[in-house]
């Protein structure tokens, strides 16, 4: 009888210590967890991309779909840019930071040969104001003088190579410009607007 009691006691200690350790070996765990994601059209996105209210150049911007598209060739009136001239299309796009942290914003993928570039207008509401040289407030597209490897320009060569830094609620007004020999310009492609948090740059 005594011996039997002892065995039961040992058994329960073993069980107790297993529980105290808390974990057993596991071979695999597969856990399904739920997520809710809201997708919005460009005007309502965290990085909002829209035309500019009351701008005559909104004619070039089609905001009817979920994503903005720009067509400079087939808008009402003329059908293309002048060759051997300097064309500036102001108030083309407004890009607004509807997120919660400062972001650098710029564009990639614009035509390079011949090239059409995007620049930051001085009507923008940005944190690194006055970064640009000449009439452009700052570089905006990767084929302008923007240095995409150094968008925060922490190499200290002067901020004209930096991308505009946009605080929550701030915006960049974007103009397009092209100059010089534009012969053979026929671009129909996708450009990418990028935003990267200030502390990631």
């Amino acid at each position, binding site marked *: 009888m005594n011996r039997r009691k002892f065995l039961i006691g040992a058994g329960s200690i073993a*069980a107790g210590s297993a*529980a105290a350790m*808390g*974990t*057993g*070996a*596991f*071979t*695999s*765990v*597969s*856990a*399904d*967890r*739920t*997520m*809710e*994601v*809201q*997708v*919005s*059209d*460009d005007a*309502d*996105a*965290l*990085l*909002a*991309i829209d035309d500019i209210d009351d701008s005559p150049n909104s004619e070039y911007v089609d905001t009817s779909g*979920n*994503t903005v598209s720009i067509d400079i060739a087939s808008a009402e009136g003329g059908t293309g840019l002048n060759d051997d001239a300097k064309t500036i299309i102001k108030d083309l796009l407004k890009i607004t930071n*509807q*997120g*919660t*942290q*400062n972001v650098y914003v710029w564009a990639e993928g614009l035509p390079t040969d011949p090239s059409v570039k995007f620049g930051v207008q001085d009507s923008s509401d940005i944190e690194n104001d006055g970064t640009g040289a000449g009439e452009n407030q700052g570089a905006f597209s990767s084929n302008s003088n923007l240095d995409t490897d150094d968008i925060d320009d922490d190499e200290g060569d002067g901020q004209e190579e930096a991308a505009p830094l946009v605080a929550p609620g701030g915006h960049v007004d974007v103009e397009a410009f092209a100059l010089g020999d534009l012969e053979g310009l026929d671009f129909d492609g996708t450009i990418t607007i990028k935003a990267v*948090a200030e*502390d*990631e740059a």
Partner: protein
Amino acid sequence: MKRRNFVLGLGGLASAGTLAMGTGAFTSVSADRRLQVETADDNDALLGLEELGEGYRSTKDGSQVKFNFPSLDNQDPDLGLGADSVYEFDRDADESDKDSPTEGLLRIENQGTQPVDTYSEHETDSELEIELYDVTDPDKTALGDDPVTLDVGEHVDVGFRIRTFDADIGTFDETLTIVAEV
């Protein structure tokens, strides 16, 4: 004396034969043993899942972690991720205002007893693509492409990458599967 010897010999053979048969036949055995299984809150489970931040994007619904993008506390009902885009969320919505923001939206911790590889899977009828990445990885490689090995007691803090190419406008309820295996 000779005969006795012979009998002993037989006995020895018989015994060897039984050993070779090995087992007796039985039709059924029913043995009750105690099994104790508990489910734990995600934070305390063998595969520990812990929400990071202040609860805007990464929360817990009962005992399970749950995620909302752009944010649970969305003041503007129209606000969302843009279509045809790639969004990366390294951290919760208000972390950037802090001096030392909490990086990552989810901590995956190995609270088991052996090293595991951990990654995520995402199956959906929508066009959304969702993957996790280690926020300390400069390349932000998706865990699905390169699972992170967690030793016992180790954790990885992950961010979310969401691709919205060809996605419709609207709100999507998605399921993300977090896997850990030896």
